[in-house]
């Protein structure tokens, strides 16, 4: 009974829980995705503020707005926040929202584990961020090079917060990794074979393997550092014969795959956005899949290009130079395939399309300067200078973040049922695009002129002044850009245009169901026969101008109970289990106090809570008993 009147509110089923408390107990992947999105954007404001303070300090030579010590904390927390608390969780917001929808599933394989991942991320993020208010934030760089970070050279709690915070955050990523791998392998709808799987799900699949294989390595590197700092072991004690490169190797065996963990989800999103707005299928789909897999595999073989300056010798340097150059090939293939997707397309320049195209341009610039570093002699000139800072911001800000923004403008309806405002979105895009180029492009010049990274101030007359001033002006432009985005999200979530099932005339499964989808996603599990099943029904060029005016029924969708679909219980157990981790680890940090009582109470109390909650969780069924086969 479709009405011809455009609806005023997004569709919801009658039995959906509402109110703030429902968010704490939710196991719904879409709601967990929204939690990730909201939390990551909040951390983005914090990390952005840290960057603005740094740029203000560097605007002119010899400024003393912040102290050198605070500056160390700012650049450490800016990097740590943006990598672990913003880009990864923003990607996780899309993993959560989209993977089940794109493969035709009703949820992830382990809904409670999914909630656990989110809560661990939130508590770990707070644990590592809060100390900056007390001037005790981590101050050893996001890479935390040992032996610099051992107790001898970094006394104080700063590095302890970093080591333990990252350890907690790693648990979140690993749990999510096992969950999504199982979901993608095992919950695809009939007919959704691997070579029909949307590119975003494919790239997410690759990323989960990178996560579960790379995070254990940094876990061990951090365990060594933790033991050195707390129990007096010798892993990074050079005077006891330790190898000063051990940390660097372990860290970058994790750290380089981490770069692809940050960028492949954005690649996936852009590969969804491009066909939708060019209104033709992705060019070279199989090659896009294979190049993504190849990037993931090669990503484990290039780590020592971060270490050319330490003097590993010509053989190691040559090996890692060659593998690094090799990885440019599948990456270049992707860039050409995006361009060929646009070629001959009937392009609609929505905000999402502009962010996607901007991402390709920015990422290409960052990729080209990246290939420059792959040559060890060139790298020796560039390493530890602002040239490298410019390079990786083009890749992470211009690549990852702009790709994620493209995803946000496209998929906001699947989070909220409403569209983001396009006019504000275009303002956001253009200010963001000019601003980010103005911050990061001059850094190449200041870097080639010899300006080192991580210095808190510099003398005049070295040729750096103008470039630093320009970078700071660019950074200030990003403030209004970000505020426009925040306002747009705030306003559109309340009163944005109702999206309907498929506002963009896109081709993949997630657009066949209402926005936001009902708790069970698909009333009947679809049977998939092609890569763009919706375009089989309605060819892309036939679609109306975007965004479409939705014509869905005003009547609420049927509830899961009416359809006989079993739904997981709402539960606080994942939250409580996650809460035990910061309590237990926080207790460990109290070890060096005179009074040992709080140390024992929190550490053993937290451990008991963790084990107790786990038993409670694992002995309670996920869904009503009678649905178990």
């Amino acid at each position, binding site marked *: 009974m479709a009405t011809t009147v455009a609806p005023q509110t997004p569709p919801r089923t009658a039995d959906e829980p509402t109110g703030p408390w429902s968010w704490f107990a939710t196991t719904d992947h879409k709601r967990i995705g929204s939690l990730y999105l909201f939390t990551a954007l909040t951390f983005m404001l914090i990390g952005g503020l840290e960057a603005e303070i740094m740029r203000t300090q560097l605007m002119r030579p010899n400024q003393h707005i912040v102290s050198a010590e605070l500056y160390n904390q700012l650049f450490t927390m800016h990097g740590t926040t943006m990598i672990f608390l913003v880009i990864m969780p923003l990607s996780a917001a899309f993993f959560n929202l989209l993977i089940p929808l794109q493969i035709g599933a009703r949820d992830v*394989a*382990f809904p409670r584990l999914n909630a656990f991942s989110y809560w661990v991320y939130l508590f770990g993020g707070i644990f590592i961020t809060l100390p900056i208010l007390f001037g005790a934030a981590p101050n050893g760089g996001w890479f935390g090079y040992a032996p610099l970070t051992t107790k001898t050279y970094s006394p104080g709690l700063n590095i302890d917060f970093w080591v333990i915070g990252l350890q907690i955050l790693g648990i979140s990523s*690993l749990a999510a*990794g*096992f*969950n999504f*791998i*199982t979901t993608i*392998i*095992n*919950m*695809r*709808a*009939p007919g*959704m074979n691997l070579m029909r799987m949307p590119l975003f799900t494919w790239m997410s699949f690759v990323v989960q393997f990178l996560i*579960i*294989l*790379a*995070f*254990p*390595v940094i*876990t*061990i*590197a951090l*365990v*060594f550092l933790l*033991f050195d700092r707390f*129990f*007096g*072991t*010798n*892993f990074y004690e050079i005077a*006891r*014969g*330790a*190898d000063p490169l*051990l940390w660097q190797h*372990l860290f970058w065996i994790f750290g380089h795959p981490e770069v692809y963990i940050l960028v492949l989800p954005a690649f996936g999103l852009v590969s969804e956005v491009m066909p939708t707005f060019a209104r033709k299928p992705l060019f070279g789909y199989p090659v896009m899949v294979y190049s993504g897999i190849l990037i993931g595999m090669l990503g484990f073989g290039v780590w020592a290009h971060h270490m050319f300056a330490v003097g590993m010798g010509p053989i190691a340097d040559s090996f890692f130079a060659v593998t690094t150059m090799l990885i440019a090939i599948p990456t270049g293939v992707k860039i050409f395939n995006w361009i060929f997707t646009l070629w001959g397309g009937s392009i609609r320049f929505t905000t999402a399309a502009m962010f996607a195209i901007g991402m390709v341009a920015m990422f290409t610039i960052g990729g080209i300067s990246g290939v420059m570093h792959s040559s060890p002699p060139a790298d020796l000139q560039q390493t530890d200078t602002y040239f490298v800072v410019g390079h990786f911001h083009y890749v992470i800000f211009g690549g990852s973040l702009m790709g994620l923004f493209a995803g946000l403008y496209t998929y906001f309806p699947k989070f909220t049922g409403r569209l983001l405002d396009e006019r504000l979105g275009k303002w956001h895009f253009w200010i963001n695009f000019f601003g980010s180029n103005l911050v990061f492009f001059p850094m190449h010049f200041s870097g080639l002129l010899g300006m080192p990274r991580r210095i808190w101030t510099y003398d005049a007359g070295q040729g750096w002044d103008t470039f630093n001033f320009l970078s700071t002006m660019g950074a200030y432009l990003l403030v209004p850009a970000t505020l426009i985005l925040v306002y747009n999200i705030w306003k559109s979530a309340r009163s944005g245009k109702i999206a309907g099932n498929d506002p963009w005339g896109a081709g993949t*499964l997630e657009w*066949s169901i209402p926005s936001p989808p009902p708790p069970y996603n698909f009333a*009947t*599990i*679809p*049977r*998939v*026969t*092609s890569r763009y*099943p*919706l375009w*089989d*029904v309605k060819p892309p060029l036939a679609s109306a101008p975007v965004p479409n005016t939705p014509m869905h029924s005003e009547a609420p969708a049927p509830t899961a109970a009416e359809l006989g679909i*079993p739904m997981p219980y709402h539960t606080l157990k994942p939250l409580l289990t996650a809460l035990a981790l910061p309590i237990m680890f926080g207790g460990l940090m109290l070890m060096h106090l005179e009074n040992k009582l709080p140390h024992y109470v929190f550490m053993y109390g937290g451990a008991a809570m963790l084990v107790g909650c786990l*038993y409670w969780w694992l002995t309670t069924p996920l869904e009503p008993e009678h*649905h178990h*086969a």
Partner: protein
Amino acid sequence: MTATAADVGHGYTTTGLPHRKIAIWAFIGSECMLFASLISTYLIYKGRSIAGPFPHEAWTDPSTHHVYKAILNIPVTSCSTFVLLMSSLAMVLALAAVENRDVPKHTLGDRILGSSKLWLFTTAALGATFLSFQAYEFTSFVHEGLTIRTNLFGSSFFTLTGFHGAHVTAGVLWLLTMLGIDFKRGLGPKDALNVDIMALYWHFVDVVWIAIFTLIYLIK
């Protein structure tokens, strides 16, 4: 795309395997990288300690002239390795007993082989025996002058074997929990998946020990 749901029931999975089976394999893959990092660090630091005691040869402290004998006690650890390997056999029998619970048992042999309680208990007991060996080993090393703080060998040895011991401990707790459930309501074919997953974890921890025993104890 046609919307029919004839054969997509609640228990449907793409591969036909249960979710938990896939997740445990992903977990084991991840654990391989964890132990690979620990074992690599041990091997990289092998022979780099600037002071003893050492794993395979005696060492005289130049200042005190105290002679420290070689630390590793291969005969004792061979026994504990045998115990742990036998626990894997018991685990296999426990899983078979759970799977075949409903098969009628005629002889005493059938009843012994078919007792999941007996084999779960045996697996846990052998695991606990291995842990006792490790506790004995750790205390005797400390008495001989090697702690986790002494040198690079001590740090990397205790951390590596300690991580493995922690994994065995988690496995023993898991086994005892299953044993408790078996006593409470009996484990049958519908529990086979849970026991199977536990068995995969247990065998994995065993295999890691074979690598550790070979690389750390046997190769000098």
